[in-house]
């Protein structure tokens, strides 16, 4: 028993890097690795690049921003350990979650107990951020449960009316299934004929059986809301079966590159982020910053927006910025997304999501990925 107590002591007194006291301290726990890393790691790197660029330009009023990034591999137990370390030992004044929904609960509980605001960036927005919002919880991620399905069904109705058979595709993880089952209800209300949702278990060797059941049920349109892999594998299998219908999927960060790879005229992606091909000044900034990084620039919009929100919050909170000060500042935040999104991100005391959520639909039109329908606003009640 003796040796392991000594080892334990060693980790306890690990060299707490003595930080210059005047830096703003922000902590992040995210899925840098693990099965879900594909859609979170690029966003985290985008945020790191933003903060580095901010510090290079003198930080906030001369003080640098110290971003502590911990990997939780999408596992709840690691998420809990990270949040205790960030709040207890690193004493951060703002905590960010960029991971699977399974890590939410322990981090929410710790943040509310420590009175430190928790920002969900690139991870799905939990229901607690919608009005009437719970204290301390904010979300800057593009996709949002409930509103995505409504916007998608509006678009489908606009294109093909309501006399259609609607296929529904989700992955067998609780969040994706929940949203698609809600969409089934919404579609039925509008008079469409929704099929029973096709829920695909994650490790699938061959997607053809799932595509067959959708095709044989005679779907004209198919709506998919799931991780990008499930969405794209299903449409590829459907095309191989000779299905010519229209397929609309949620535009994750990989969407732009993938639409160019697939070159499918009837494949729509609905999203809240703008296209990098528009080459707005902010896109150029991201490309410049992302030169030489492991992930492609067009997957970093989510992380960049999170950086904007963090900067705005810290700048509004002033110095010294403890949890309460940053939280108070975030209540009235108004962040201009410089074209990355359809509009600004506004937080109010009651709405920690955004005042209006903008959706855009795009697809491949033969030579490039083009915008089929420009920003469509939905006010968040």
């Amino acid at each position, binding site marked *: 028993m003796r040796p392991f107590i000594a080892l334990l002591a060693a980790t306890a007194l690990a060299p707490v890097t003595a930080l210059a006291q005047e830096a703003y301290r922000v902590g992040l726990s995210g899925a840098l690795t693990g099965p879900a890393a594909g859609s979170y790691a690029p966003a985290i790197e985008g945020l790191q690049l933003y903060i580095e660029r901010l510090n290079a330009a003198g930080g906030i009023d001369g003080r640098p921003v110290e971003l502590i990034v911990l990997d939780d591999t999408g596992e709840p137990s690691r998420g809990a350990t990270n949040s205790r370390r960030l709040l207890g030992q690193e004493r951060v004044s703002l905590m960010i979650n960029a991971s699977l929904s399974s890590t939410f609960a322990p981090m929410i509980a710790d943040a509310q107990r420590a009175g430190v605001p928790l920002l969900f960036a690139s991870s799905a927005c939990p229901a607690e951020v919608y009005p009437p919002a719970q204290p301390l919880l904010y979300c800057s991620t593009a996709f949002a449960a409930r509103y995505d399905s409504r916007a998608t069904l509006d678009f489908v109705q606009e294109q093909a009316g309501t006399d259609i058979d609607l296929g529904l595709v989700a992955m067998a993880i609780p969040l994706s299934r929940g949203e698609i089952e809600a969409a089934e209800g919404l579609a039925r209300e509008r008079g469409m004929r929704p099929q029973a949702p096709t*829920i695909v*278990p994650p490790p699938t060797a*061959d997607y053809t059986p799932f595509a067959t059941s959708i095709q044989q049920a005679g779907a004209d349109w198919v709506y998919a809301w799931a991780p990008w892999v499930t969405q794209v594998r299903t449409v590829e299998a459907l095309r191989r079966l000779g299905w010519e219908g229209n397929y609309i999927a949620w535009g994750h960060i990989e969407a732009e590159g993938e639409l160019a790879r697939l070159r499918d005229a009837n494949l729509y992606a609905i999203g809240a982020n703008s296209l990098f091909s528009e080459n707005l000044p902010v896109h150029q900034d991201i490309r410049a910053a992302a030169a030489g990084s492991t992930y492609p620039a067009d997957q970093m919009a989510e992380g960049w927006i999170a950086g904007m929100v963090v900067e705005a919050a810290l700048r509004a909170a002033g110095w010294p910025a403890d949890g309460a000060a940053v939280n108070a500042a975030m209540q009235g935040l108004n962040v201009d997304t410089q074209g990355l999104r359809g509009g600004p991100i506004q937080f109010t005391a009651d709405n920690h999501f955004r005042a209006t959520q903008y959706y855009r639909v795009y697809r491949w039109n033969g030579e490039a990925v083009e915008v089929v329908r420009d920003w469509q606003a939905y006010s968040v009640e």
Partner: protein
Amino acid sequence: MQLIVNIVVLTSIYALVSCGYVLIYRVSRVLNLAHGELMMVGAYLLLVTAGYVTNPMVAIPLAAILSLTMGALVYLLLMRRMTGESVLAAILTTIALGILLRGLIVIFFSAAHQYPSVPLGLHSSSIQILPGARISTLSLVLVLVTAAVYGSLFAALRLSRWGLRMRAAGQNPLLAAQRGINLHFIYALVWGIAMFTGSVAGMLISLDAGLDQTLVLIGLKAFPAALVGGLDSLLGALVGSLIVAAAEVLLIQYVNPLLADVVPFLILIAMLVLRPWGLFGTREALDRV
């Protein structure tokens, strides 16, 4: 009609993967739970060879040969030390090997989703093979490859001398050694062939559906197919794969797609209770364990 085609494709995927389990168990009495990871490593090897030479007709065979040698090396460097150890120790060594490979793959290739078909310029078009039934070219290739692999394995085990020696080593290693058969070569050969067939399956799946960590789970799903047929016979692996694949496809179509994930294991439990040594396995395999 399309359902039958789907069943044939899924059967050949599971068969090509599960023959790796059967070969290793039948000859060296070791259950290789790292087969899923070895299959994934084979697919990533294709990513490496595709980086150097973009002609698929060269890249794929090159990667296949690399995986054959790697399979043999896995035996010679690691599993050879485990001969004579307890059953649990041997299984756990394969599990540990699997964990090690998973870690190394992420270190070298990052966790992102990769597409080996892009550098090779392969686009998976689809063909109409029967009225009302279409299949992707790669799936067709996979079915043909599975048929070729099983055909050559059955022939080799029946006719070629090395095939006989593999069967002999599986039945009575001591007597095989007394008759001058070099057991280490046989085991290395069989581990090589198992990784070869697994890697070919891994490559074809990744050319069709892209490549990432989840390929390992497909290896795990093929495992019940090998066991249902009896860990001990190739014919069993084929029949087992057919049963599991047919159950999955029909359940997805008519009952509830969610069951596809757990169906193979339900069949496995039923089989273990009724006939633990599987349909074609030899009962002796059970007592010996």
